[in-house]
């Protein structure tokens, strides 16, 4: 039951998209997000869709996987679509059924926001599908490092993310074990209403939390034993270097930027 939860959705590969420096990739995704929310021109959404799908093609990410990434957000997309449709009262009145009025601008807003959200999910999914979680945290730390001047805890944040990524599978495994042990003693996690189900989870969560704190204590000892003393004076084994792939990716994005400036 808990085995199908995976951390991130990384699909390992060696394509050009995979090989883009994670720092560059994060910045490009940020640019992309800003761009889709800035532009009002409908055919530009087509351009950005083509851009994302092109990247997926190069990275050999199956379309099915990309489409699946919308699933968790489908409700929000549909909900905002309907809200826009019903609540916007500008433009021409197109249709009136009883008290429900649909205006032309309502349709435009609804479609635009839905497209933006879908493109947003596609773009960020491409990032997580083609970059390993460790590279992501690593890149995030390096990008945020300048902010440590204003005491932004870039290193601490990255370390927390790394440890979380490292321990989520371990804790899930443990939860699974405890669950099985309690099922064997007659605990029932599947039937009953939501309150009964939540109550059944208490004897699962208590030992899980107690163990998690013990783990945290031991991990802290182990980290200190290995000379961990925060980000100060720390070096990294991995050196990130820019290559022609990054140059190419940036060039493509400069093209997009030009379109954006010319056509809005």
């Amino acid at each position, binding site marked *: 039951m808990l085995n199908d939860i995976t951390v991130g959705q990384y699909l390992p590969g060696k394509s050009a998209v995979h090989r883009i420096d994670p720092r560059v990739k994060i910045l490009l995704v940020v640019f992309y997000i800003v761009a889709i929310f800035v532009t009002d021109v409908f055919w530009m959404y087509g351009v950005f869709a083509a851009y994302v799908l092109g990247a997926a093609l190069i990275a050999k990410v199956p379309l099915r996987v990309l489409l699946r990434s919308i699933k968790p957000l489908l409700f929000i997309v549909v909900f905002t679509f309907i809200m826009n449709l019903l609540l916007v009262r500008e433009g021409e009145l197109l249709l009136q059924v009883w008290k429900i009025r649909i205006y032309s601008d309502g349709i435009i807003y609804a479609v635009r926001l839905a497209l933006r959200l879908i493109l947003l999910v596609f773009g960020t999914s491409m990032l997580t599908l083609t970059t390993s979680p*460790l590279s992501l945290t690593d890149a995030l730390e390096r990008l945020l490092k300048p902010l440590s001047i204003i005491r932004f805890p870039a290193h601490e944040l990255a370390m927390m993310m790394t440890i979380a*990524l*490292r321990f989520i599978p371990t804790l899930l495994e443990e939860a699974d074990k405890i669950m099985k042990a309690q099922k064997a003693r007659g605990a029932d996690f599947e039937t009953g209403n939501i309150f009964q189900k939540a109550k059944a989870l208490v004897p699962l969560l208590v030992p899980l939390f107690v163990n998690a704190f013990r783990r945290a204590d031991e991990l802290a000892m*182990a980290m200190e*034993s*290995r*000379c961990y003393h925060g980000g100060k004076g720390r070096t*990294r*084994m*991995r050196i990130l270097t820019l290559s022609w792939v990054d140059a190419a990716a940036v060039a493509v994005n400069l093209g997009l930027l030009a379109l954006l400036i010319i056509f809005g």
Partner: protein
Amino acid sequence: MAEIVLSVEDVSYSYASMDEEDVKALKNVSFDVERGSFVAIIGHNGSGKSTLAKLLNGLFLPKEGRVLVLGMDTQDEDLTWQIRQNAGLVFQNPDNQLVTTIVEEDVAFGLENLGILPADIRVRVDEALEAVGMEAFAMAAPHMLSGGQKQRIAIAGILAMQPQILIFDESTAMLDPMGRREVLSAVRKLQQTKDLTVLWITHFMDEAAQADRVIVMDGGRIVMDDTPQQIFRRADELEQIALDVPMSVKIAREMQKNGVELDCVPIGMQALAEAVCRLK
């Protein structure tokens, strides 16, 4: 006489407790360890072994007495990182000492903390992984490995820091017999080829039997400190402090009860077999 790399001088340690009296975990413990030796520390639950281990690399500081690692006092805050780099500590639960999601990144963790240059880290990580025979798993995720493999990664992480002393706090306790043998033989090999000093805390008497020297703890004190031959000769005393003897010694004692006297206390099955062959 060989160089002393670790010396514990009249050390006492107690845990503060809110409601009751402080727990005295170590009482006036003293011993020296020579370079290149393999010292086993045994004692039943709560005898103070883990407390001792944490005092040896400055995780805990002695309330009385002092601990010297290669002549450096653990009390001296300026030397803390140098001491921890030189006296590596491997814990019991392999799951709780691996920090990152990729094996080689984890092995690099200590070196990154020490501020070593990236190119040097690369070399030392590869060497350490090779030394524990895990080079094929450099890019694996820790949670996909077996217990023994995880523990070998933890050892590689310590080894990469190039310590002179390795301290193991029941590092085989959570492993199956296969994993246990795997880890112990990796450590023995390292100790011999790299001239490392090893302190091996364990509950398994068969492991202690392979050491050069055995320290027995009880109630926060050292009660015996001798070669395995001399220690396991005193099976009755060990029994009184809830400790066992190695299987080979047990068999020899049973034989003795049945009237078959061996000419020595056999430490290990090999020694037992030889002693039996010497019988006519």
